[in-house]
Structures are given as C-alpha cells and as structure tokens.
C-alpha cells in the first residue's frame, strides 16, 4: 500500500512529465477507439440503409429456367412462401413484393439509367413512410402510369411532376419494351443508391415485364432490427426447403464470395418450375463486413505501431527517472526497502500512467465521437450510406475497449520493466555515493 502511495506521489511530483507521457498514451487510445467505434457502426448503418433501399432483411427470389437455359426471376403463387414465413415465426415489420427492371428513362433528348421497382402502393406501407418528396407526391401514383424518381434523375432529365417520360426496359425473357410514365413525385436524393432507384406501380411494371398481374420477383421481409437476420434467414430457408425446391445454401457456404457463388448456382443446374433462393442482407453485405474487419485489424496495427513509438519514449523517460532518483533509491534501499519493492514502485508508476492515460484517452475518444456525431450531413451526401439519419454514429464494443486498455497497460509495463529492474539491482552504497 505504501508503494502505491509512493508511486502516485512520484507521478504527482513531476506533473509536466506525467502529463506528456499520459497524453501520448491517451492519444493512441483515442485514435484506436474512434476507429473501432466507426468500424462497429459502419456495418450496422450500411445494413440498415441497405435494408431500407432493398425493403427487407431476409429475401426470397424465385427463379425459372427456360428450355434455352435462360434464367428469369419470378414468383407466381406465393401461398407456400407466405406459409413458410409464418411457420418460421419471423417477426416481420413489413413485407414487400416487388418486380423491378434496370431501365432507361428518356425525356426530350435526355437519358438516365435507373432501377425501377414495381410497388403495390395499396398494400406496401413501408415505402410511403420512407419517401420524402420535394415535388409532387403519392397522389400521382393513383394513376397506373405514375413514377417516382429522385432529384438527381429529375435534374438530369429536366422533368417536373406531370411530365411524361419514356421508360425503356427488357421483359422477363429479354425482349425490348417501352412504357410511357407520368412523373408523380420527385424525392430527396438518398445518396448514391437512392438516386439510382425509381418507383412505379407494380401492375404497370408487371405488364411491361410480361409478368402476370399478381406475379412478382422478390419477396422482402423487413425485420424490426438487424438482430437475428441470420437466424431468421436460416429458419426461413429450412421452411421453404420443406415445401419447395431451393438453391442449396450449404453448397456455396465455403466460397469466399458466398453471394456470387450462390447467385451463380443456377447456371450449372437444370430444373423445371420455379426454384427459390433464400438469402439475407448479411449475405449481400459480407464484403462490407470484411471492410469493417479490415478496419478493426488496421486499428490494432495502428495501436501497436503507436505504442512501439510510445514505449521507446517510456523506456527513455524511466531511464532518466532512474538517474534522477538514484540517491533516493539508495536511501530507500538503505532503510530496508527490498529490491522487488523498488522494482514494483517503478512498475506501479508505469501502470498508473498507462491507466490514467487510457482513461483520459477514452474520455477524449467519446468527446470526439460525440462531436463528429453531432454534425448533420445532408441527405444527398455521398457518405449517406454509412450515416444514420444523416449523422455519423459510433459503436464501441466494451470487450474491444478493455482489450485495447490491457494491451496499452502491458506494453507500458514492458517498456518500464528494464529500467525498473536496473533500479532494483543498484547497490545502495554506490547509489548513495553517486553525484549527479
């Protein structure tokens, strides 16, 4: 206990030096915590934004193969699928049933490419809640040929609500088709993905795609949160597998790019009727997770590099401390302090320095994250996809934070160990005789 008190007193004696060393440690901890926090929220925010754009966390796609080997996405009778959703006990917040096409919008010599989703506005409540209109609105979608586009597309085409545009697309079997649409509304640009999407009535889209009025291509199940996405996806896969032919998820699970391998399964298989593909948002965003993992690894490397530099500083500082306090050490040893206690005194000083610096660093990190989180980014910001409601968010994992502090403490102790051992090994008589 006396050693702890002495260690704290020694740190307090040299305020400036303690502050500088502690600040170096705090800076390292702050940088790493902010990066960890960003990586933690990065996946969640992208997943949530992507779920909003794709209108679901868990998806079922129906695939039909023609005699010539061409694959077409189609779900005709979904009674079995809806029963499977029910049997899998999925707490769906919304269910979306959409038909879509990559289309070219043409107006008065201007041209824009975008994905047009066919939506049943009378049943789907998800989209109307999300859309933020600048001009026009959902009223125009009561017309069969209404279309909603984002602001950048409207600007590129130079259109206003009420203008009639041509939409060139391909039918399910790849035939050229053209529809005429009326601009019903122009929405706020929701970042790069949002600006590439438009929405039309499913009935008209189905007609242009040569689908039946009740057919669609993708069933999306929107969960209350990201939590449980994989588990619900697995449960749904098993339920659909029990009642209909499905693409085998297990066959692709060892592939580095699961989703590509899973989506390409149909190319090598032949089947009749409709075969279903059950997949989740996490399957699609596996590569985003890899980016987050890479960020986490990078932050750990940054932490180690920073601390190797800081360790050199700590070792040098403790050597100076040893030199400065050499007669004090001689005195302490003369009045009965053992070698181990002298070593521990220095190690306690280093430990308190590390802990103090780490706590200070964490406080700084939370201040920095709060400050960045307070910045409001515009909806058309290119970083929209990584934002949550227009703000950058951070998610710090407590275990990861503790690990960082432990690494810092261990490295600091290691840096201080050799000067501490040298101090402990000093001959008291020699130490007392030393003149600085």
């Amino acid at each position, binding site marked *: 206990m006396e050693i702890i008190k002495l260690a704290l007193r020694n740190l307090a004696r040299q305020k400036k030096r303690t502050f500088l060393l502690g600040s170096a440690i705090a800076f390292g901890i702050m940088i790493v915590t902010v990066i960890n926090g960003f990586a933690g929220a990065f996946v969640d925010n992208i997943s949530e934004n992507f779920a909003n754009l794709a209108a679901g966390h868990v998806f079922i796609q129906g695939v039909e193969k023609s005699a010539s080997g061409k694959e077409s996405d189609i779900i005709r009778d979904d009674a079995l699928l809806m029963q499977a959703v029910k049997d899998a006990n999925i707490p769906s917040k919304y269910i979306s049933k959409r038909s879509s096409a990559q289309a070219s919008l043409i107006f008065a010599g201007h041209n824009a490419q975008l994905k047009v989703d066919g939506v049943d506005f009378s049943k789907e409540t998800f989209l109307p809640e999300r859309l933020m209109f600048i001009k026009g609105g959902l009223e125009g979608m009561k017309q069969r040929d209404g279309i909603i586009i984002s602001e950048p597309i409207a600007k590129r085409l130079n259109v206003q609500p009420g203008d009639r545009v041509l939409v060139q697309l391909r039918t399910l079997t*790849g035939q050229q*088709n053209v529809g005429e649409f009326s601009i019903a509304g122009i929405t706020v640009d929701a970042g790069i993905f949002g600006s590439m999407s438009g929405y039309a009535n499913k009935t008209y889209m189905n007609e242009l795609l040569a689908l039946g009025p009740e057919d669609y291509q993708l069933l999306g199940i929107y969960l209350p949160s990201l939590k449980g996405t994989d588990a619900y996806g697995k449960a749904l896969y098993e339920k659909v597998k029990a009642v209909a032919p499905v693409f085998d998820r297990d066959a692709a699970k060892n592939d580095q790019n699961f989703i590509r391998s899973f989506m390409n399964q149909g190319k090598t298989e032949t089947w009749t009727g409709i075969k279903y593909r059950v997949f989740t948002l996490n399957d699609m965003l596996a590569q985003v997770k890899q980016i987050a993992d890479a960020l986490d690894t990078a932050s750990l490397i940054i932490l180690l590099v920073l601390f190797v530099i800081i360790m050199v500083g700590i070792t040098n500082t403790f050597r100076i401390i040893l030199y400065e306090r050499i007669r004090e050490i001689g005195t302490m040893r003369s009045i009965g302090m053992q070698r181990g206690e002298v070593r521990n005194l220095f190690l306690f000083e280093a430990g308190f320095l590390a802990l103090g610096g780490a706590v200070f660093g964490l406080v700084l990190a939370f201040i920095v994250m709060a400050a960045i989180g307070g910045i409001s980014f515009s909806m058309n910001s290119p970083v929209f996809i990584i934002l949550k409601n227009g703000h950058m968010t951070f998610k710090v994992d407590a275990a990861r934070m503790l690990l960082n502090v432990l690494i810092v403490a261990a490295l600091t102790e290691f840096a201080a160990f050799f000067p501490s051992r040298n101090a402990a090994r000093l001959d008291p008589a020699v130490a007392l005789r030393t003149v600085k």
Partner: protein
Amino acid sequence: MKRLLGPFAAALAAAFLLAAPAGAATTDFKAILAQIDKMQDFGSSDFSAVYNIVSEKPGENPATTQIKIFRRDLQNQILILLQKPEKQKGQGYLKIDDNVWFYDPESGNFSHSTMKENINNTDAKSSDFKRYTFAADYDIQKTEEGKLGSYEVWIFTLAAKNTEVSYQKIRLTVRKDKAVPLKEEDFSVSDRLMRTTLFLPTYIKAGDRQIPAKIKMVDELNKGNQSVLTISDVTVSKLPDSVFTKAFLERAQ
C-alpha cells in the same frame, strides 16, 4: 337505306380484294424470308469483316467504334473484337451455341452476357452481326406492296414466334427484284417503334453472296441518335479453330 347499303358495302369489299397486290397471291413470302436469311448465312464457310461504326448523338462529337467480326455459322459461333476506341480495345464477345461471354482486358475477366447488348454505346447490338433468323424466329403477320425510293418493295410485318428474340415485331421492307432488305423497323412488345435500320443499296461481295456495304441505324426513342456502319476487309476463307476460343480473346489485344 340498309338494303341499299348492304350490296354497296359488299361491292366495296370485293373491289378492295381485287385491288390487292397482283403478285401477292402467287408470291411465296416464306421463301423470300428464307432467302434473306440465307443471304447472311455463310454455311460451311467462315466469315470475317471489319465494321466501322460512327455514332452520332445530339450535342456530342461523332464517336467511332471499330469491331472485327469472326463467324462460323455452321457451328453457331461468333467472336466480336473491339479495335477502337483505344480505351475499349481488346474487349470482346464470344458466342458458342447459346452461351455468350463478354471479355474485358482491363479486369482480365469473362462475364456471362447476351447478344442483346449494345456495342460500346452505339445503336448496334451484338445480335446485329449474327446471321439472320427471320424465318425461324418470326411469323409473317402481314405483307404489303410499297415503294421505297426508286425500288418496288414488299413490306413484311413479322411477329415473334418466341419471347426470346429482342423485338416482338419487325417491319421488314424487301426489294421485289431480289430478296434483299432495304429497311428494318423494330418494335417493342408495347408496339412502339424503337429502331429503324436502313440497308443502303450498295453491296460488297462476300464469297458468292452480296451483303450491304453500309447500314444506318436510327434510334427512334432517343431522337437524333444514329449509327452508320461501314463494312470492309470481308473474307470468307477458313478461320483457325482457335479463333472461337476464350484464349483468342485474351491474346487478341
């Protein structure tokens, strides 16, 4: 009054029937269509040619694309290699039976594609360079007589037999004096005119066949967009088997 109108209407209908194309009753339109297909089918010979495509878009400078085509119709093989512009040089399509791959030398990867893709932002599609299959893919819905420039023509309205061809309806204008198309109008499933192709009546010899030396494609949706294709370096000599391989595309750059 009705009594008077009845015979009058019947007489009118008879007059229309009599006024129908004199040759129409005796002309074998299916045979004409088959002849057109045959004109572009090199059978057991191989075919290669260079197509220079000049595309015009309003407000933009004309862009030139050059492609080299290699065809082996007997085995349903085709290779399209982009030679210009420099940026896309080395890109290409390889079709073997029903499989089509696109090769991008920048990534060094092949990806599955279709013959319905437009080539390098021009109005020409990959499928425009394969042999014609009008007789196999389309039913003759209607034939009319007409005149295009100084040529007496048949105008065929063709309806797709299957849903896998690009255009659901085609109106084909063919010279009466020989089975050579002068104009092709392509319609969408919703019956909107999408593209007009004019085969200018100057021909180039390809073995024992004659093919149009210049073709003009007009985009009817994007007004002002058009492409002019000029054919050169036509040969029908035997090509090495190695041409119709992925390795050829990889090495071709």
